């Protein structure tokens, strides 16, 4: 978090806004830190939400060939705010969007590893601690810069914001994944990382009175745990949130004991794990199949009036949102998710 990098001035044409940004920061980071909102989701060059047109100046793109930018976009001098950094003063064109104004402006903090807990054979929970308080809303994510790993990686917090500076993440071990290889193989208690947070507007809205339905797969569990903790503090009388969790195998199912720690959460009634690949001979007696197929069979007709939080592997998120929006006709504003790729 060195602040001795060169600073540049970025001017948003048409909006009459300008802000100062360090050469090392992404345009998106700079915009959000200055209190302006523009659309974004994955923060990693995948979804293409944060496209802007460069009118003047130089930027460097950290992610050549990112999926979010088409050849035709490049011809029109478009870039992605999340993966481009200014190299001079710039003039850009992008439509500010108040919905995306950060309720807590993202900041970079240093943190050290405090504890590790094994949730399943390959999904572990890591707690870090920072000096400044941990400020974020349930469901938001952070960009973690890990030693020896090129570029930041996005992970959702699994706890709630707090003054003790505690940040919880759940990370899945993936073969050959450098981020997971640092955390699983090299990190020791006390290892230092940098956290840039919070991001995302797919967070719990304490004003909404709609019942909550959380749908997760894989490491998409973390934001749901955060949301369920957050919801526990809200007095949603008689509106118990439901957690659907899609696991590939029985071994990937999150234990009831772990979820039992969420206040007022009745795991027997509110937690529905669904397994897609049951080995022959396994004694699994719960539902099987893909999460969206299970929802197709089991969601009630009054599902229109719920808020949906969705996180997990991209194909799962895609199948679930297609089902909810295209088949169930649920209003798009009731769905909360970030499109990662």
């Amino acid at each position, binding site marked *: 978090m060195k602040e001795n990098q060169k600073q540049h001035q970025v001017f948003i044409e048409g909006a009459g806004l300008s802000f100062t940004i360090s050469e090392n920061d992404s345009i998106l980071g700079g915009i959000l830190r200055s209190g302006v909102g523009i*659309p974004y989701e994955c923060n990693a060059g995948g979804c293409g939400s944060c496209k802007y047109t460069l009118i003047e100046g130089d930027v460097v793109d950290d992610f050549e060939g990112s999926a979010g930018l088409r050849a035709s976009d490049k011809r029109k001098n478009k870039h992605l705010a999340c993966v481009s950094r200014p190299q001079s003063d710039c003039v850009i064109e992008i439509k500010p969007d108040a919905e995306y104004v950060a309720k807590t402006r993202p900041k970079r903090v240093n943190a050290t590893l405090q504890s590790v807990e094994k949730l399943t054979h390959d999904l572990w929970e890591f707690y870090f601690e920072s000096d400044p308080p941990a400020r974020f809303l349930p469901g938001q994510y952070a960009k973690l810069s890990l030693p020896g790993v090129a570029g930041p990686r996005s992970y959702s917090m699994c706890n709630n914001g707090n003054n003790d500076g505690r940040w919880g993440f759940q990370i899945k071990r993936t073969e050959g994944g450098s981020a997971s290889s640092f955390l699983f193989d090299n990190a020791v208690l006390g290892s230092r990382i940098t956290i840039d947070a919070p991001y995302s507007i797919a967070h719990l809205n304490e004003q909404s009175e709609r019942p909550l339905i959380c749908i997760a797969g894989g490491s998409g569990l973390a934001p749901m745990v955060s949301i369920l903790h957050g919801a526990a503090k809200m007095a949603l009388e008689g509106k118990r949130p439901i957690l659907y969790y899609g696991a590939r195998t029985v071994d990937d199912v999150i234990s009831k004991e772990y979820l039992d720690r969420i206040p007022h959460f009745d795991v027997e009634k509110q937690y529905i794990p669904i397994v897609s690949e049951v080995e022959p001979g396994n004694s699994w007696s719960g539902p099987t199949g893909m999460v969206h197929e299970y929802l197709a069979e089991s969601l009630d007709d009054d599902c229109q009036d719920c808020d949906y939080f969705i996180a997990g592997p991209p194909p799962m998120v895609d199948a679930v949102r297609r089902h909810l929006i295209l088949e169930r006709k649920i209003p798009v504003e009731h769905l909360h998710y970030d499109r990662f790729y």
Partner: protein
Amino acid sequence: MSDQENYQKVCEVDDVWEGEMDVFDVGESEVLIVHSPGGEIRAYSPICPHQDHPLVEGELENCVLTCSAHLWQFDAISGKGINPTGTSLTSYPSKVEDDCIWVVLPES
């Protein structure tokens, strides 16, 4: 109508079959031509009113146009939002003449 001379040629009708949509360059601008099942032809701005995402990457099924980014849906004939409501595609006047599709684009 004084529009008459402002019509610009986009493409031939055969370029966009019933049930298809496609994007064409007209001068400096782009226009989305939607040929709905049933035969109606419409011209729209090619970008979703939600965010900067090309509509042509979405789907056109049974006169419903779905944007691939956030699955916003629009009535392909009226351009009005189906989910969410209260929004609509930016529509341009269009006509079919001499087996070609013509539009009037706003002055930029």
